[in-house]
């Protein structure tokens, strides 16, 4: 197990190729949940958990079932199916186990399955031919990067409510402008690790 490679993967997917700020994926959930800090933290933890499980399951289904049967062309459909099933299961489980978090997340828990990142990660794993541990590390790194993005945005948006924003820019437009500025800042990470 090459820990160096794993560490590189985590840092790369969290900072260098941050899915929100560099690749601009998963933006609807990003803007929807980043209004308050508690929903942001809850969402990012749930998202990382669902991401790692779905990456693991997708990798196993791809390697052991789809490749021998030559049906790799179905991978987009299959990965989305796995994600949807997992999200529904986690919805049912969370309703019983953590009802406070469930009520706080509301509709956004079900919207994890529409998040582009959750499809992009298994596809990247397939495309880059990672083995099982590397896929898990990559998924963990993406989840961490998403969490980082959410927490930064939530802390800014909570303060933004008090500031004097011009009328047409109130709410989402200003959030978009700020995301662009943060993305600009994140380009500073490029070249940190060449992958």
């Amino acid at each position, binding site marked *: 197990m090459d820990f160096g490679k794993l560490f590189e993967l985590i840092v790369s997917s969290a900072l260098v190729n941050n899915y929100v700020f560099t690749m601009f994926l998963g933006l609807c959930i990003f803007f929807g949940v980043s209004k308050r800090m508690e929903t942001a933290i809850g969402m990012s933890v749930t998202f990382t958990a669902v991401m790692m499980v779905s990456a693991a399951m997708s990798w196993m289904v791809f390697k052991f079932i789809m490749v021998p049967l030559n049906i790799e062309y179905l991978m987009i459909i299959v990965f989305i199916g796995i994600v949807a099933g997992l999200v529904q299961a986690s919805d*049912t489980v969370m309703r019983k186990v953590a*009802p*406070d978090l469930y009520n706080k997340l509301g509709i956004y828990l079900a919207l994890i399955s529409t998040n582009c990142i959750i499809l992009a990660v298994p596809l990247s794993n397939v495309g880059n031919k990672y083995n099982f541990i590397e896929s898990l590390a990559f998924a963990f790194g993406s989840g961490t990067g998403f969490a980082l993005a959410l927490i930064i945005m939530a802390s800014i948006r909570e303060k933004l409510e008090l500031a004097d924003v011009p009328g047409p820019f109130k709410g989402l437009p200003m959030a978009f402008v700020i995301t662009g500025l943060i993305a600009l800042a994140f380009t500073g990470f490029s070249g940190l690790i060449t992958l």
Partner: protein
Amino acid sequence: MLDVYTMIAELAGTLRQIAEAVTYIVPQVGVGGEIEAKPFIDLGPLMKWSLIFLFGMSTVFGFVLAFAAKKFAVKVDPRVEQVLGTLAHAHCGACGYAGCEQYAVAVVGDPNVSPSLCTPAGEKAAAKIAAITGKKAEVVEPQYARIMCQGDCNLAKTRYKYEGVADCRAAVIAGGGDKACAFGCLGYGTCAHVCPFGAIAMSATGLPVVDEGKCTGCRKCKAACPKKVIEVLPSSRRVLVTCHSKDKGPDTKKNCQIGCIACGICVKVCPFEAPKVDKNLSVIHIEKCKVCGLCVSKCPTKAISDFVPSRGKAAIDPAKCIGCSICAKVCPVDAPHGEAKKPHSINAASCIGCGICTAKCPVQAISGTFNTREVFAAAELKKAKAAEKAAEKASGAAVPSSN
């Protein structure tokens, strides 16, 4: 015809070039790519395995989800939904629970939780919830938010000019706010901003004004105020010292013309011993205060506010008066006068409209004060109940005798 074809061909060629160029601009990260091309595709087994696999996977997922739904099922009492329909959904926390759904669950499940806790929804909701859960709705006195500061921009001094985010929570970070009095309202409107019912508006002179019609006593403003200037009190507390200044008298007077200087005049004049001076601030105690309004006119700095909208003067109906002189005994300003057993009359010049005589008159001969309607209605209710009891006793006595 040929020209059209060549034009279309050229267009297609251009479009293909653009598509190729775009693939260089979009970052290539192997998403959906890099599956080796196969030289030969066997269509028969491919179709077969695709169908079997998709069918199998959906069946497996179906079973897994059905199992999860059964095992982690949450039993929801249908009454919770009904209760939720009656609540105000302001998410204010007045009931003491974290959210509206938590209160609904508690009131349905726990027999000790009162159905009247949702103050924003009012008595109607309390009656409905009582009907749904089978509990008794208690009459809860409405509570209003009171702003305990009258130092507006003309009456209170400021220490420095504050330029920043126009919010009290932000202003208080800058050395406790720009007001000279450390206990005063800063006037930047945080309370008006957080009120879910729009009950607070900022006046032209920079003080919040509470609209009693809209205020539900949810306490959101009290939690948001960084200076802790807002108190939520029962609606019957209508005479209050609207100042929180614990500074010594001369210091308070220097900072604000309308602050409480703890001179003790209100303590001396009150016939019911309601105000108490503690830590350079006078506080009126609810148990003793009869809302007469005498201290309001006697306070030298006008720090005491009277929240009764209008005080009409009392007048005695000579037809009903029995001359018992109870009104003369309870009056704080000695306005009623008259001989024993003869109809009395009230000196309108000295009457302050406190309403105590109206409440104390045994025959409800006095009217004209702000509490006239309530006193008369309570007296009617008492008479009706007494009549009912008398009728019951009479019929109860009749039955055994007929047997």
